[in-house]
């Protein structure tokens, strides 16, 4: 028998998409505007059914594109509504222009995002290229290892977004989480609603007694200040995220942080990874620990804002680190997470760890315990000085020729 963490919790088998839709039902936003795309389609399908059945008070706008989905969500939010959307891959790419407008206008939109590879070639499977491409857009980015986290993250995201006045996206790995049945504990509607609270915007367009202009043109004399404030808000949002996590733990019993340390405290070899692959890597860490290898793991949950100082401290004493990116930046150098981790270490003055970069799993390519074991093997050789840290990116499980 699986026990609940929260006394009033309910255990059920659900897919990642189902729990994201379930969280949305419980949060019951005023407006959802979305457009279907695999593997996120189900989220909005399920939600539309809630609307059709009159289970939620939300209005659903079945727009004609993701560009309009984000435009309408932005507008609904600016109008004073709690507004949400969901998408994936090409859909997120089509929203690109609007992502920056959502954050620039400081609108607390929440988006359920299912990570999927970007075209071309067209591919519907999971990798994180889509949200990695949006990493500088001013959105808080929260990644999930499994359905439970996806559900919990959606609930927290609503509060985070509204407190930080920043749009926030919560992701799952396409198919691996979105379509996989897992045991998930959900909490009663009333408790989720109480946790999230009512949305009370400071000012909104439908408040016709206090008319104001939103979306003005800023010239050389104001633009920079507004962008500076946005960057500051992103920096400050780390405290908001941690506060909300504390509240969440107090209420529902599950602990969340900017990232998760798994057997990291005394680790000599560590992998830094995001999303479902952390689950696979934990199995490898356990097996290596049995053999006496001091392996550990750092799973990034919140990638934007990037918790650089904290991460640097926690990795400072590791001998060899592999940052595993499920996205390539095609920069001719390194993938995104690697660059952030190394910058974090270096700027904090830690130059001891040897850090290498792997890219894996593009377009849903398999990543299994053997691949990860090999990564730790290599780290072992680097740590002991048997091998030099390789330069550039190593690609896992790809046919080079």
């Amino acid at each position, binding site marked *: 028998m699986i026990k609940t963490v929260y006394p009033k919790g309910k255990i059920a088998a659900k897919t990642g998409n189902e729990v994201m839709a379930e969280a949305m039902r419980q949060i019951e936003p005023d407006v959802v505007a979305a457009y279907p795309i695999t593997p996120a389609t189900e989220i909005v399908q399920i939600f539309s059914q809630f609307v059709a059945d009159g289970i939620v008070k939300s209005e659903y706008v079945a727009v004609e594109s993701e560009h309009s989905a984000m435009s309408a969500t932005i507008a*609904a939010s600016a109008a004073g509504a709690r507004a949400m959307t969901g998408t994936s891959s090409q859909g997120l790419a089509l929203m690109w222009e609007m992502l920056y407008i959502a954050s620039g206008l400081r609108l607390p939109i929440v988006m359920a995002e299912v990570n999927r590879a970007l075209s071309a070639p067209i591919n519907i499977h999971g990798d994180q290229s889509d949200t990695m491409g949006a990493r500088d857009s001013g959105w808080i980015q929260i990644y999930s290892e499994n359905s439970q986290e996806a559900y919990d993250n959606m609930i927290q995201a609503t509060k985070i977004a509204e407190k930080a006045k920043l749009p926030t996206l919560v992701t799952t790995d396409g198919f691996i989480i979105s379509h996989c049945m897992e045991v998930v504990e959900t909490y009663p509607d009333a408790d989720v609603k109480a946790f999230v609270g009512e949305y009370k915007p400071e000012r909104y*367009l439908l408040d016709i007694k206090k008319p*104001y202009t939103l979306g003005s043109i800023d010239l050389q004399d104001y633009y920079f200040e507004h962008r500076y404030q946005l960057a500051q808000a992103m920096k400050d949002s780390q405290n908001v995220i941690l506060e909300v996590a504390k509240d969440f733990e107090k209420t529902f019993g599950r602990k969340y942080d900017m990232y998760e340390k798994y057997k990291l405290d005394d680790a000599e070899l560590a992998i830094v990874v995001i999303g479902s692959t952390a689950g696979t890597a934990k199995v490898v860490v356990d097996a290596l620990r049995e053999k006496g290898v001091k392996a550990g793991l750092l799973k990034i949950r919140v990638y934007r804002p990037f918790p650089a100082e904290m991460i640097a401290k926690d990795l400072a004493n590791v001998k060899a680190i592999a940052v595993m990116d499920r996205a390539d930046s095609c920069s001719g150098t390194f993938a995104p997470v690697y660059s952030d981790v190394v910058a974090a270490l270096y700027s904090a003055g830690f130059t001891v760890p040897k850090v290498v970069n792997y890219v894996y799993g593009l377009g849903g390519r398999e990543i299994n315990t053997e691949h990860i074991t090999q990564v730790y093997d290599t780290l072992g050789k680097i740590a002991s000085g048997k091998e030099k840290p390789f330069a550039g990116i190593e690609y896992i499980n790809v046919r080079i020729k």
Partner: protein
Amino acid sequence: MANLKELSKNPERVTGGHRLCAGCGAGIVARQTLIAAGNTPVVLTSATGCLEVSTTVFPYTAWKTPFFHSAFENSAATCSGIETAYRSLKKQGKISDDIRFIAFGGDGGTYDIGLQSLSGAMERGHRMLYICYNNEAYMNTGIQRSGATPLGAHTTTAPAGKARQGKEQHRKNLTEIMIAHGIPYVAQAYVGNWNDYITKVQKALSVDGPSFINIFTPCRLGWNYKPEDTMPLARLAVETCVWPSYEVENGVYKINVTPKEKKPVTEFLKPQGRFKHLFKPENAHIIEAIQKEVDMKWELLQRKASAGCQA
């Protein structure tokens, strides 16, 4: 029919001091739209373009009513999002005011890059009025051709030169495209006839569904004419039948302004620098083609109207 005495009591919700060019038709459209709305609360959205950039230079604004600009191609989707928020919050008793929603877009933001967003919003049936202030080119970025630019007009991306004589295509008929959406109210209007336009805005705001007005809006800079001629020039467009003033209410066509005597298109083309090259003898065939197109379209419109044609 609007009554001038009554209208003069309506609040002015666009202030002066904005940065539109002297004689710009877009400012007239904005002002008359809000006068038409009277005391009804309205929330406005606008596409990127001359109207938006000239009226909202931070920290100033010319708008005394809620105004939202988000991007170039999404004024309709944006307005639809606000209207949806309104329905949601009203249903929940969180707001009580009766509010109307108006989206502005230039011809670029409407005919071209924003057409999909507009079509989607109209098809979804949001209760909103979309107003295209149509100055027949991308003026804000320096007079580039759009799908609304007429045959032969000089623009900076379809210029008149040694080998080519301005735009080589006719403009698309967006009004008819909107009529084909089967929405309750569609109209063509023009700057320079306040009564015709204000009546149309009031009708559009009264229908319980989407409505669309395409208003012919001279741009003194892009069309290259004297700033004081904005209104006479737009009237010439109607008198030559280049831009008929008509409406389609629940599918029934009605011509609102029938010229007493249909003038030749040259009277409309002549005062404008953008058509100057057409008056070279070797370009006579282009003027002929414009006249032919105008005649054909006018004939067709008259037939639709006299037959009480259902769209």
